[in-house]
């Protein structure tokens, strides 16, 4: 009988040390459950009150909203949620998107996310609001740290940020034009990537200085068959820059988790060489998690792959339980596994499946 109504008691209080040990593939008492995002309906059901989604109270950073339209979840809500679901850390939006702005008719800075930058002239009209972004990020990190301290909690905090290429193709240039520009005006693309890199290096440094326990850069660079851009080009224009974003954390001994959807085979070795600790989300449409465990399990912590389409959205609690068990059997041995869904805990997943998912992790994830 699968309990999909209420959360079962889980073993071991939420503790950042568990997550940090999992990143480093050290022994832990249970496989940590850790999600990039719980959307608001699940949060409300779990908490018993509205608190927004875990990345934003109001607005949705995953869809391009930012500080002007929302703010990260309030610390007390997030800490309560972590305690309810047994999650070891808060993950907040430290700036997913490069903060490109332009002035509107009234002279206000507004996000420049209309996919209308097609050449150097368009690019030169953009304003990078790096300082504004950094200042918001530091303020929110300090809020979280303060709340954790006040509660005397062992829960940790990390920042999600760093979409150097995705900002460009998703919001600034547009997918098709970005892809062609990478071939035809590589200099301009590199200039934009470089500007983003400089900005995100500052975010890494500020996260470390502000006491973040880990960093989580993200940048969707692939789809189910492979990288968007040729591996050779990626190794020239993207790998060295993402390495620079990682570098302050590597030097400070702060664990690094990285997210890209799709089949990222062609850059996994690069990511390991850059100092990556944990790879997420092992896209189920492009990655065989058992194969990844064999190939990278002794060098990387792995996170993700439980498909939000099936079983989470379309399956039953019994299907969810079985899928979590299957993942545990392959990924749990030898440590270095963090249970995570293939994307995020979106509202369209039936809540009973979310309960079944968390209960299954806590049931099968014990060492």
């Amino acid at each position, binding site marked *: 009988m699968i309990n999909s109504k209420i959360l079962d008691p889980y073993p071991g209080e939420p503790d950042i040390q568990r997550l940090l040990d999992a990143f480093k593939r050290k022994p832990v008492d249970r496989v940590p459950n850790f999600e990039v995002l719980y959307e608001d309906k699940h949060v409300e059901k779990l908490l018993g009150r509205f608190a927004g989604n875990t990345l934003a109270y109001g607005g949705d950073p995953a869809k391009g909203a930012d500080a002007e339209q929302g703010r990260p979840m309030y610390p007390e809500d997030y800490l309560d949620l972590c305690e309810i679901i047994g999650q070891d850390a808060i993950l907040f939006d430290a700036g997913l998107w490069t903060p490109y702005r332009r002035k509107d008719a009234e002279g206000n800075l507004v996000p420049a996310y209309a996919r209308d930058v097609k050449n150097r002239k368009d690019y030169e009209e953009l304003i990078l609001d790096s300082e504004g972004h950094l200042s918001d990020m530091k303020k929110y990190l300090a809020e979280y740290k303060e709340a954790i301290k006040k509660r005397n909690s062992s829960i940790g905090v990390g920042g999600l940020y760093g979409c150097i290429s995705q900002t460009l193709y998703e919001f600034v240039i547009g997918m098709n034009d970005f*892809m062609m520009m990478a071939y035809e005006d590589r200099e301009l693309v590199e200039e934009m990537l470089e500007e983003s890199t400089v900005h995100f290096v500052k975010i890494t440094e500020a996260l470390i200085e502000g006491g973040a326990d880990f960093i989580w850069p993200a940048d969707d660079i692939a789809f*189910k068959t492979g990288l968007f851009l040729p591996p050779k080009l990626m190794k020239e224009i993207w790998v060295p820059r993402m390495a620079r974003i990682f570098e302050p954390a590597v030097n400070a001994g702060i664990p690094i988790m990285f997210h890209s959807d799709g089949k990222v085979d062609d850059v996994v070795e690069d990511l390991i060489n850059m100092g990556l600790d944990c790879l997420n989300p092992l896209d189920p449409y492009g990655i065989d998690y058992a194969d990844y465990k064999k190939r990278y399990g002794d060098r990387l912590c792995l996170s993700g792959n439980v498909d939000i389409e099936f079983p989470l959205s379309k399956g039953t609690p019994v299907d969810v339980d079985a899928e979590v068990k299957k993942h545990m059997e392959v990924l749990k041995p030898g440590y270095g596994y963090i249970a995570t869904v293939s994307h995020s805990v979106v509202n369209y997943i039936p809540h009973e499946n979310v309960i079944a998912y968390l209960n299954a992790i806590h049931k099968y994830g014990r060492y």
Partner: protein
Amino acid sequence: MPILDDIYSATAKGNYKDIKELVKKAVDGGEHPKNIVEKALSPAMIEVGDKFGEGVLYMPDMLLSAKTMQTAMEVLKPLLKGDEATVEKGTVVIGTVKGDLHDIGKNLVIIMAEGQGFNVVDLGIDVDYSKFVDAVKEHNPQIVAFSGLLTTTLANIPEHIKALENAGVRGSVKLAVGGAPVTHDFARRYGIEIYAPDASGAAKEFVKEIS
């Protein structure tokens, strides 16, 4: 014919800057415009699509080849007079299903379908049921293609089909569906005639269905 080889090669390599000149040279040399499309441009796009599917080529390669073909067609279309029907294989109306904002897959299918000579009417993202119906009435397509990344939005497929049925146009078109979580079984379940796991396969299936 070396000139057709040159056009094929330029298209496969995405050399859109030289293609106009090559096509003009071929036409001036007596090459029939229809031959240029059928023996050089379309086969080159098939090769590009296949290589993309195999992971040999990447998105920019495919986009530049598509741009090359489009540039060539700017020269050829006015010359096709009377041959448009044989060169143009048919019309495809395509869009992401209601509620779905993910369009990478849809855009790749458009590139490949146009490469195979289809006139593609792109309805964009998050397309309402009635918009598909209106497009069928307006453009008289042979194929209506639904694209979706999310299970939750793909669940709107029966409503899309019902809207076409209610408008009395379901029987006049073949339906196609694609997207990461879509399977052959999914397509069959809803009586959808065309399914392929990738963009190149979709264009080939379109050709099969209308021939």
